[in-house]
């Protein structure tokens, strides 16, 4: 993410609005719409946590990281079908999720019409009377302008800062 490759202000604005729109869709449980309109069929969707290791540790990355999500298009659809089943007692009464997105930076990639986007997020979940959880994360996205001119998410890597999850679960898209 070199400083000189930053996208121009108009594209930045478009990307920012894309991410806000996405958060709003997800917060309003419009998962299918998100899936259909914002994701590229080639999507790779990852969420990563790191084990606590000493700085000098020499073991390979996969021995140090755990991925609650490492999904392709089909895996995501399977998960969305679970949400659509209407059978999750966890979601009844409905939970309230809110994804505040900040620190958006976008950069041109070598491939044309492709952008590397860095953003931060603070997602809050309120559910039942007393449950409140928060998760802090960074995201590195790859966005591509599709043939219809609209942006699509081609890859997302979500880095969680927490090692031990404090949420009741992470069954949510960040």
């Amino acid at each position, binding site marked *: 993410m070199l400083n000189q490759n930053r996208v121009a202000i108009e594209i930045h604005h478009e990307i920012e609005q894309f991410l806000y729109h996405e958060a709003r869709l997800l917060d309003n449980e419009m998962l299918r719409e998100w899936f259909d309109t914002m994701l590229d069929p080639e999507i790779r969707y990852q969420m990563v946590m790191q084990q606590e*290791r000493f700085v000098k*540790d020499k073991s390979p990355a996969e021995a140090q990281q755990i991925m609650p*999500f490492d999904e392709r298009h089909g895996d995501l659809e399977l998960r969305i079908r679970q949400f659509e089943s209407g059978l999750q*007692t966890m979601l009844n009464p409905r939970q309230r999720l809110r994804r505040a997105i900040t620190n958006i930076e976008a950069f041109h990639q070598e491939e044309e019409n492709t952008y590397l986007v860095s953003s931060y997020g603070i997602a809050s979940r309120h559910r039942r009377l007393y449950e409140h959880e928060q998760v802090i994360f960074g995201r590195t996205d790859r966005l591509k302008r599709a043939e219809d001119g609209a942006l699509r998410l081609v890859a997302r890597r979500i880095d969680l800062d927490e090692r031990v999850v404090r949420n009741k679960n992470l069954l949510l898209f960040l």
Partner: protein
Amino acid sequence: MVDIRELVDAKNGTQSRRIFWDREIYELEMQRIFARCWIFLTHESLIPEFGDFVVTRMGEDEVIVWRQRDGSIKAFLNNCTHRGAKLCTAEAGNSRGFSCSYHGWAFAVEGKLASVPCDSAYGPLFDRQEWGLREVPLVQSYQGFVFGCMDAGAPGLKDYLGDIAWYLDIWADVPGGIELVGPPSRSIIQANWKSPTENFIGDTYHVGWTHASVMAAVLGQAPPQTAWMSEDQGFHVTSRYGHGLGVSTAFYGPMMLVESCPELHEALAVRQAQVEQEKGPEAAKLVSGIWDGSLFPNCSYLYGANVLKVWNPMGPDKVEVMTWTIAERNMSDDLKQRLKVATHRYFGTAGMLESDDIDNFDNSANRGYVTRQGRLNCQMGLGQEREDDVFPGVLGDYMSEVAQRGFYRFYADCLASPNWQDLEEATTRWKSDLLDQ
């Protein structure tokens, strides 16, 4: 003093809600269960080399589990004996020793206090030999699973596993052995440690109901709850020291994993043939099923779904969940990684199945003075316990709560016994007590 027999009616399969709430009971559990029973520490495959270590907990006590030069494994309390600072702050790694961050006391892999900075300042009254790390008295392995025990008077690990060892061999005694793929996912949930443990030990009952959303997503629609109770479904087992497990032979074990790990089909067929030869056709039938099980007190696993769980207590109302993927050592690295992803898809902290369960374990349901006067029911299949020619332990139907009852039977014996000698005595007639009931 806590009256254990009032809390758990082992004969009738009921328990007081207080065992899921009271701090006093919890403290007794820490003493009489977690400082007495064999506690899962790690798997040998996670610390293969000299100096490899993981840090984990036995009850609330943090321990370093450490591979020795001679290949043996020792475990130590993870605290400096000088002014008490935490010693190792990583979860895992490789080291031949740790220096304390406070004053630099250095402890070697075998637990000795190897060096003391400025030691000439100490004077003759200080004896360095006395201040090594405090060692967990017993550490033993079975099929590569490493357990520790704080009570030197405990029976050996193999004896402790008892009837269950036979079953573990079926999936763990594979050529090359099995291994755990780490690192574990970790999360903290609002639950008493017994709730998830009893769920994994034998809760066939909830599968069709709690997890209907996953069934619907995977199968298109959720089958009725009774789909899990046909005659030939399998069985649940309980054993002397509270361990239990269940096998459903009506379901294909790795059904959720095969899409991303198709190699499992063949591996299973191979294994089935091996088991048939070693243990006979009845045992072989179990290989393609889906298993649930818990080892007393707080280690659970699903064979077929290939996950191993530890439920570490953090107070009466909190559990830290640790989840590993079970793989065969001889699998390719690539398959192991795909297996890791697939198992977490269902049983990780973002797992489709796991997420359904967590509310059910929520300890806040026990809030309230009057509420806690209530009792809980665990009577499914009560009085239908049986022995079998092939399968060790005491059996019940696959759709039964025989394993949960066995868990609480031993739980109560454990809390009521001041030492292992009494505990051995209390459990010696467990089988006839159950069968003659």
